[in-house]
């Protein structure tokens, strides 16, 4: 793709004290591209995507998002986060607000939209994740799968150019995984740029343009999903996939 990349990481290093969580990460994601990140626990997947929206500072290298150089400056971070939606493993919905209020909070306070305007947008996205009927309930009254769909809608309400997902289905009961993956698949089909940490291989095969395998803070292997899942090159990836299938 000749288009300018939406996200670039070049030579990024990140440590927590003496512990090196990311080593020399270089990666670029084009607009509309879908990247799935996988790897064993503690390999730095969460840390990497949290660096991309400035939730974690990094010590070396350079990250750009939508052409903006992501520094530690608060203003820069906030500007970047307005372009980037993030969905967490634990949903992180605000329990004291209704579903609708969860979705209009940031558009109103960050984008300065009027309440009516924000509500209209929110209702559109809630409808899209098929949860509009629950708009006036509180998060605790919803199932995990419904909560995660709300979290996706809430992120979409900010009209992001990039969506980050950190194991969005791994806190869910098995029967709810599909409803969330379906929403994500739809989103991918509509052309959203996505970086998604997940071990859902079916989803990766169906949606991803590229799979990135991480181990011990490094990107060990990158390949299209078919190639990665059928013929992983590195020994670590082979081991990891064998365990995943066991």
């Amino acid at each position: 793709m000749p288009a300018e990349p939406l996200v670039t990481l070049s030579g990024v290093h990140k440590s927590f004290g003496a512990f090196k969580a990311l080593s020399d990460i270089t990666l670029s994601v084009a607009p509309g591209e879908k990247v799935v990140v996988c790897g064993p626990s503690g390999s730095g997947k969460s840390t990497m995507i949290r660096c991309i929206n400035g939730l974690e500072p990094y010590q070396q290298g350079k990250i750009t998002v939508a052409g903006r150089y992501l520094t530690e400056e608060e203003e820069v971070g906030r500007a970047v986060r307005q372009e980037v939606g993030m969905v967490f493993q634990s949903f992180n919905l605000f329990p004291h607000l209704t579903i609708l209020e969860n979705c209009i909070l940031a558009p109103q306070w960050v984008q300065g939209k009027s309440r009516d305007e924000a509500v209209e947008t929110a209702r559109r996205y809630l409808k899209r994740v098929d949860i509009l009927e629950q708009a006036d309930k509180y998060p605790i009254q919803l199932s995990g799968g419904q909560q995660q769909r709300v979290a996706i809608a809430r992120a979409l309400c900010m009209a992001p150019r990039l969506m980050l997902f950190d194991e969005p289905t791994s806190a869910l009961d098995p029967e709810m995984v599909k409803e969330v993956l379906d929403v994500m698949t739809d989103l991918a089909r509509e052309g959203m740029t996505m970086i998604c940490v997940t071990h859902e291989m079916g989803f990766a095969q169906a949606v991803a343009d590229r799979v990135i395998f991480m181990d011990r803070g490094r990107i060990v292997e990158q390949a299209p999903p078919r190639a990665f899942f059928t013929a992983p090159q590195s020994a670590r990836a082979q081991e990891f996939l064998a365990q995943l299938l066991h």
Partner: protein
Amino acid sequence: MMRYLLADPARLRRIGLGFGFVILVAVLTLVNQKPWTPEALSGLNPWVLRLGTALVLALLVMANIRALGLLPRAAQVWGVWIELFLLLMAFFWSFDLSFSFIARKIGFLITQGVAMTLYISALSILIATVIALVGAVAKMSKNGVIYGLASFYTSLFRGLPLLMQIYIIYLGLPQVGYVIGAVPAGVLALSLCYGAYMTEIFRAGIESIPRGQSEGATALGLAPAQSMVLVILPQAMRIIIPPTGNQFIAMLKDSSLVSVVGVWELMYLARTQGQTEFRHIEMLITASMIYWLLSIGLEYAQSRIEARFGRSNAR
């Protein structure tokens, strides 16, 4: 020993009751300096009379507890309250109070004293809340200077007796050229002292909210202040409100310390109004009852607020 006591619940109960009875008799014997002395027994050793009176009284107490035990729970609570209240009144009655004097003064105690006490307490709790909010945020700051300021503040103002703070502010500020009135000095001292305590309450409340909440807010693009006010504090309030209510009740009574610099609040009036006619005890008891009533009112308000907050946050 432990085994002997715990093995048989009925025995434990008997031993406990017996033990309580003995202690009650002992205390009553030692404390009661004017035992009941019928004519016929007036020649006896006073200690025998004391012991006899104590036994009778203790038996009455035990019988009373037994009788209360037969009632349903709510009636038990009311029964205990009414009995103890009557005892308290009997205690006051024994002072031979002049009720006409109280009636003459109570109006002023309320219009001036209670009004000033409530004014000082309410203003101070308001300022203390603001201080506590700023202090809590500062105490969680990564910036060492800010943390240093906040921790020095809380350490100093929690470490000095409130009375000392009132004197230092009232007498000390004029030394550096800033003359301060008694009321502002009192409010300042109360606010700073309670602000320091409440800083810890607010910090604990804020820290009890899971990290994911502020991360979720940050990821949506909210600025730190927005995330604090719109997301964290509304949730933290449920944890902050109950101890803050206690602080308010405590402050209501600690505001009496401000009387030392001559503020005409309830305590000051209670001490001074009785002087001219040597009716100190009347005023002190009246003021005490007023403090108690105010506290009960606040406790009630607090329980209402808690209930309301609990509901709106019912998730």
